[in-house]
């Protein structure tokens, strides 16, 4: 008997589930935005905002439901992911609500569209749908390996999603970038969902082909070059991302997909040559396209020196517009300084267009200062870190690849968006996950967190105790 217990004791020690840690952190993730909400109200009107109770209860309820579902259906999940996403989502709501009350933006909307509609209630609804999506993922997806079955369906789905905005009558061209489709009264950004579906396809595909890609190669100048027939997929993805760039005018999405693919390829094959090739192809493509697309050119000019370009660009041109926008964003950041002006007291609404979506990070910069921006960047950094940790802990290659792909894409998106608005790289039209106004983004990112939580639950779950072998009972100890 004693022999048997020796093998099972290891598994019998209950791994800590950390659900209570998550709950405590969640409490902070709800309370901090509620205080921020109060702060905005006091700064703008000098009184406690009337919607505070509703907002606090709403956010608390959503977080509570999400927590209970995780507790029940993914008990061993990473305890940080849910609170981090909740905090970011909650702060995003506060910032959007704050910009809703800008008299300048209200006047602008009335001038341009004849009426102003507040964004915060919509975003609250999108957040609820997002949490529902998160719950749905956890309920339906009992094991992430199930997704492996849908590798090629995912590929088709991703391509359709990516090409939808180009369908006449469905896609809408808003401000240069064709990344939207209109269904009913809603605008949807299919690219945000394509990110998830593509990650599934890449993981499934690379898991099967990784050996062929890694081993069947020729050595050339110190690099392992893959065989021609294995080059197909990377060339296809490259071509598709270039097509996105050319036809949808969306540098960000294109960079994001290609970058995610290269990262996953590298992880799957452990071959540095892929990175070198990826970088070369990305640079080549970007240079090629930027010499033709005026849209990209003006973004590059605005990035190099917006103040200078504003002087030289012809008045009323797209380039002047792009440069002016960039100067406004930079001045917004600069005016925040180290500690910021305080919520509700900045002038980031001078950015005007897309102040609460693409450029919402400038409001963080101006009103919460350098300190606030660094906190937000570190919060995002933590999500990425937990994602990578999940990938490391995952026991199956598919899970590893999927977790890495999703967190890599997340990291790239943060870099592309935050780097764009801070003038580190040319600006692209993408949104800050959770923070920016936009239903597709919030919903897709909650789904992303859901998948990561599912993988981390599987990864951290204690190994099932091996069923006691019936033979063990039978074996008699023979005493001499």
């Amino acid at each position, binding site marked *: 008997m004693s022999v048997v217990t020796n093998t099972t004791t290891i598994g019998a020690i209950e791994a800590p589930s950390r659900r209570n840690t998550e709950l405590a952190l969640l409490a902070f993730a709800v309370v901090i935005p509620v205080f921020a909400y109060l702060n905005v109200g006091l700064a703008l009107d000098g009184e406690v905002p009337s919607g505070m109770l509703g907002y606090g209860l709403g956010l608390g309820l959503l977080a509570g439901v999400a927590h209970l579902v995780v507790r029940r259906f993914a008990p061993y999940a990473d305890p940080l992911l849910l609170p981090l996403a909740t905090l970011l989502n909650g702060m995003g709501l506060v910032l959007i609500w704050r910009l809703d009350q800008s008299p300048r933006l209200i006047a602008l909307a009335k001038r341009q569209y004849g009426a102003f509609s507040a964004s915060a209630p919509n975003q609250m609804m999108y957040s609820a749908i997002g949490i529902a999506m998160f719950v749905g993922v956890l309920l339906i997806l009992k094991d992430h390996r199930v997704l492996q079955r849908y590798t090629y369906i995912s590929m088709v789905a991703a391509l359709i999603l990516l090409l939808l905005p180009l369908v006449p009558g469905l896609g809408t061209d808003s401000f240069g970038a064709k990344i939207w489709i209109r269904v009913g009264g809603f605008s949807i950004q299919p690219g945000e969902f394509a990110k998830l579906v593509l990650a599934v396809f890449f993981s499934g595909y690379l898991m099967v082909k990784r050996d062929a890609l890694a081993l069947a190669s020729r050595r050339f100048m110190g690099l392992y070059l893959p065989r021609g027939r294995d080059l197909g997929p990377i060339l296809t993805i490259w071509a598709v991302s270039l097509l996105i760039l050319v036809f949808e005018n969306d540098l960000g999405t294109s960079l994001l997909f290609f970058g995610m693919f290269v990262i996953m390829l590298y992880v799957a094959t452990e071959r540095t040559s892929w990175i070198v090739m990826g970088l070369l192809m990305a640079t080549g493509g970007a240079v090629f396209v930027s010499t033709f697309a005026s849209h990209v050119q003006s973004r590059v000019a605005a990035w190099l020196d917006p103040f200078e370009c504003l002087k030289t660009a012809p008045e009323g041109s797209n380039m002047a517009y792009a440069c002016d926008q960039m100067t406004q964003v930079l*001045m917004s950041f600069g005016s925040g300084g180290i500690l910021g002006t305080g919520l509700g007291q900045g002038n980031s609404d001078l950015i005007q267009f897309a102040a609460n979506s693409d450029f919402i990070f400038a409001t963080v910069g101006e009103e919460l200062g350098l300190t606030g921006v660094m906190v937000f960047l570190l919060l995002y950094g933590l999500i990425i870190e937990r994602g990578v940790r999940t990938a490391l802990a995952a026991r199956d290659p598919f899970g590893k690849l999927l977790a890495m792909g999703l967190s890599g894409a997340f990291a*790239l998106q943060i870099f592309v968006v935050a780097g764009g608005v801070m003038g580190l790289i040319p600006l692209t039209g993408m949104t800050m996950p959770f923070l920016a106004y936009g239903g597709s983004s919030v919903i897709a990112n909650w789904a992303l967190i859901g998948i990561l939580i599912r993988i981390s639950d599987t990864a951290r779950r204690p190994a099932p105790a091996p069923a006691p072998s019936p033979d063990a009972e039978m074996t008699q100890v023979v005493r001499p």
Partner: protein
Amino acid sequence: MNKPLRRVAIFCGLLVLALLIRDNWIQYVRADELNSHPRNKRVTIERYANERGNIIVDGKPITGSVDSQDPYYRFKRTYTDGPMWAPVTGYASQAYDANQIEKIEDGILTGNDDRLFFDRTLAMFTGDKKKGGNVVTTLSSAAQKAAFKGLGSKTGAVVAIEPRTGKILALASTPSYDPSSFAGYSSKDEKAWVALEEDKNKPKQNRALREIYPPGSVFKVVTAAAALEHGKVTDIDAATDTPEPYKIPLSTVPMKNHASGCQNASLNEALRISCNSVFAKLGDQVGRDAMAETAEKFGFNAEQFTPVRSAASVYDKKMDRGGNALSSIGQFNTATTPLQMAMVTAAIANDGKLMKPYMIDKLVAPNLDVIKQNEPEEMSRPLSQRNAQLIQTMMENVVENGTGGKADLNTDGVKVGGKTGTAQHGEKNAKRPYAWFISYAKTDQGSPVAVAVIVEDSAGTSREDISGGGLAAPIAKAVMKAVLKNRS
């Protein structure tokens, strides 16, 4: 797969690190530059976000602030008697920045100055609206009115100083402009601004502080001071050895006198009838460097900060003897601001002690606490008390028996000293000359006012009539009268 995973993790970390560094770059290193960038509307938004403090003269505000409910710039500046006070206040425009007191004391007026930190913090707790502090000036509205009215439609400037303290009492410049007309940012404001910019009479130019004119004969008091200070003349009633005609050194051109009786005239007599020859010869005797030394003690060759900056008046330190002789009668390269001539007069009236001219008496917090009180400050002693009193005697002689009769107040117990000037300018002196007059009034308790007046050109006045005594002296008289009346 874990090795590349770790590497990618490091890569992701580097991406976040790059963002953090970039953020420090724009929000810390470049923060000031971006914050105060000329394209950054926040500076102006902030300037007009709260009720702006006022500029005060004689206890009454000469500015105002109206709530326009505009989503960008909420409060708008208004001015009472804008054109009259524009040389003092400057302007504060939502579209065109600000200047003069409005700009220099912007921190106090907006309430953003560090010295108002306590008030701001207190207001935050008591829930009061943030408000700007007030700037109390040294000006006298009676004197300013007299000066502005006196100039009327003529082009010119008046500066009046209280010699004992250096307080600026009047600072008028015509033609003037109304800073209210472009205080906002609408197309109407733009039109008004452009019209002022394109006006060839330059109404936005602050002639009292920023324009330098040849002083002509009024500069002779400086030459007299230099001659006395450097011992070239000891007895003002002794005859000077001046030939008639007197030839300008290094030249064969004789110095032209407008008056007769200049041959060997005494200093006193020469000033009374304004002899060019006597002063040119004295200036030559004193020499260029000593002349410049005295002139600089009066404030020449330096910008003055009242705290509104004035242009630097000029006494050339590199010209030859002939140039120096001509400069000694206020021609050639000598050029001065009206403020500078008022300072010269004030130093003489104050028995040789030049007080630093200033126009801001104190800065007051919104709760009426005094943040800063400016005290009179001695700037220099260009001449001794005795010599100053000698020049006073001579200047009083000018008013009683000479060219400055129109400035005489004829009031018991008040002595008035003055000097006229008519400065040639333009190619071959073809343009209408400038009419100058400087004067001071003096009672038993010292001198309450010194004035400098310049009238550039007056349409409808024949050339002969443009003389300091005729055009400028009555304005000086009116200003002195206003100051004296205000005191009694």
